[in-house]
């Protein structure tokens, strides 16, 4: 990104600045834009990030600024890593492009009471068992096939449906955003095509950047938060990154075009058709919201089923272990939340596309166990580097509608990665470094090469320096199951 247009947002002019903005040009009419990140991270971003962010800042009813997290990269419509809040009473909009195709894609993190030193001798067996148990990859189907009526129950019940059908425990539900189910889902607003796409896909991981990883807590940064989260150095945790599968993809597909046409009809000037949106209070906006909430519940149920499958494997191999949900975050959503703006509490619809909700300490939506330290925020890394658990901050609530980074963010396109790496060689190289990869697609593995991603350490550090969340623990991958 050309940094010459950026100026420090908070008045700092030294190299420590992590909050930036772009002044308005003469005659330019838009809300402010804010980019979080170090100069170095911003320099790696494509210029399209700023272009897309500026487009978001032109949408009606935007409150505050259009924001990009430190891991932002060029998306479609919104940048990935984009955050934007809209006020329904000010003509604010809901945008399908601001949520993305993989509705409620997110990360479930499970903690175990196992130390890696106990697991390491059995790592190959564990990797093979997880690979066999977790349906992954293009064309894969889950172990359960639902009827249309059952799937409609999933879309309303979310993770509760999964637990009620034997996939997991009630304790899991306490540690999922929104208690494992969002209200307002309207299965009737979901097309039959979307329903049909999902009948065989519950409990599947997908492909691309989705994964199931067995990780080790390598370093604890914040002892108090780590204690609250039940994390300790040397501990084995499991992270599952996936979303709402075919159903969410189809809802995104259906409404992207429908809302693009609606915007035209409603006279909303879209700087980019991909920003497809409608006023929140309009019938079109309400229809998408109902479908999108159904997509969120589908994703929450999907990760709950995968949690159960992973837990079964761990308990089979290590019979005395306890596998508990640490937290489940969604990073492709739009949610109605109350935020204080200019001293007044307002109901806003916060789009987070490739951004994680990060409620600070004391937030009433947090489970009692975490309320004193803030919401767990998970920054997923690439399969060769690491992931971070962070804690939400009060400052993030004030600066970014309680949002933080979600991943390392790509530094290189998939085509570039394919030109640089071969899947087999990459898997062998990672194995030599003690990271076991089980991938159904060698091409997919090459596209996901760790070198194709930004430095996750720098993203996590920048997230902390921008006060969006504070680092709690660094997780290193040991086993990675990919589609």
């Amino acid at each position, binding site marked *: 990104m050309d940094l010459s247009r950026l100026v420090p947002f908070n008045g700092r002019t030294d190299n420590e600045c992590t909050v930036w903005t772009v002044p308005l040009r003469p005659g330019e009419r838009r809300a402010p834009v804010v980019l979080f990140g170090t100069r170095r991270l911003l320099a790696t971003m*494509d210029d*399209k990030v700023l272009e897309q962010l500026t487009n978001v800042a032109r949408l009606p009813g935007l409150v505050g600024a259009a924001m990009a997290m430190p891991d932002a*990269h*060029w*998306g*479609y*419509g919104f940048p*990935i890593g984009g955050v934007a809040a809209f006020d329904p009473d000010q003509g604010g909009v809901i945008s399908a*492009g601001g949520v*993305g*195709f*993989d509705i409620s894609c997110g990360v479930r993190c499970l903690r175990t009471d196992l130390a890696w030193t106990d697991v390491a001798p059995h790592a190959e067996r564990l990797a093979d068992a997880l690979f066999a148990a977790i349906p992954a*990859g*293009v*064309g*894969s*189907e889950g172990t359960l096939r639902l009827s249309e009526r059952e799937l409609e129950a999933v879309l309303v019940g979310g993770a509760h449906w999964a637990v009620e059908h034997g996939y997991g425990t009630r304790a899991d539900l306490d540690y999922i955003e929104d208690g494992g189910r969002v209200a307002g889902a309207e299965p009737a607003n979901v097309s039959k*095509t979307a329903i*049909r*796409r999902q*009948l*065989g*896909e519950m409990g599947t991981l*997908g*492909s*691309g950047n989705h994964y199931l990883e067995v990780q080790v807590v390598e370093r604890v940064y914040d002892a108090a938060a780590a204690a609250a989260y039940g994390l300790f150095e040397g501990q084995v945790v499991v992270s599952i990154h996936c979303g709402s599968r*075919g159903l969410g*993809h*189809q809802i*995104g*597909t259906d409404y*992207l*075009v429908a809302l*693009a046409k609606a915007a035209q009809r409603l006279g909303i000037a879209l700087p*980019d*058709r*991909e920003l*497809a949106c409608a006023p929140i209070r309009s019938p079109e906006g309400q229809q998408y919201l109902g479908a999108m909430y159904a997509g969120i519940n589908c994703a929450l149920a999907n990760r709950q089923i995968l949690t159960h499958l992973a837990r079964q494997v761990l308990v089979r191999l290590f019979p005395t272990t306890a596998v508990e949900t640490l937290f489940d975050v969604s990073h492709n959503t739009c949610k109605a939340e109350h935020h204080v703006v200019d001293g007044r509490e307002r109901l806003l619809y916060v789009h987070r596309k490739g951004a994680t909700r990060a409620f600070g300490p004391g937030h009433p939506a947090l489970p009692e166990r975490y309320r004193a330290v803030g919401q767990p925020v998970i920054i997923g890394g690439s399969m060769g580097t690491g992931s971070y658990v962070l804690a939400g901050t009060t400052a993030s609530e004030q600066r970014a509608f309680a949002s933080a980074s979600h991943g390392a963010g*790509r530094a290189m*396109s*998939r*085509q*570039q990665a394919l030109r640089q790496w071969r899947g087999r060689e990459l898997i062998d190289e990672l194995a030599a470094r003690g990271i076991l990869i089980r991938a*159904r*697609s*060698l*091409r*997919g593995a090459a*596209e996901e090469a760790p070198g194709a991603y930004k430095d996750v350490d720098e993203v996590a550090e920048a997230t902390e320096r921008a006060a969006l969340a504070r680092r709690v623990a660094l997780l290193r991958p040991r086993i990675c199951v990919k*589609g």
Partner: protein
Amino acid sequence: MAAHEVPAPNAHPDYGYFDHDADVGLSGRGPTLEAAFEAAATGLFALMVDVAAVRPRERVAFVFEEADPELALVEWLNRLLAEARSRGLVFGRFRLRRQGDRWQGEAWGEPWRAGLEPGVEVKGATLTMLAVRQEPQGWEARCVVDV
């Protein structure tokens, strides 16, 4: 060619990819708009499988209406994805016909099987960098697909 006759595999389908940060830019070219769309479809499925290895065992046909050729490209690609995913199929050959705003699509393929090496799953065709244009050497259809 009879209406339901399987089209011969195109030995050199004219598709290509262009860079996008997180996803994949897809383009198809051909002497006609329909041929460009068919090439784009081949490129779409080539991300997921070796299309030359897909046997044309099952045929899927569908019709849609769209006045805007750019939105028609997105509809065509997304319909193919939806038909493939909901039926557990993978496609390797494609045919598209157009009469005004009415588009008739056909695809041939087979269920996923052990011999087909999986690539990456495509979630959907997007409106990003969406363009359908006629150039001196023929038609080009392009957009970014989300993977």
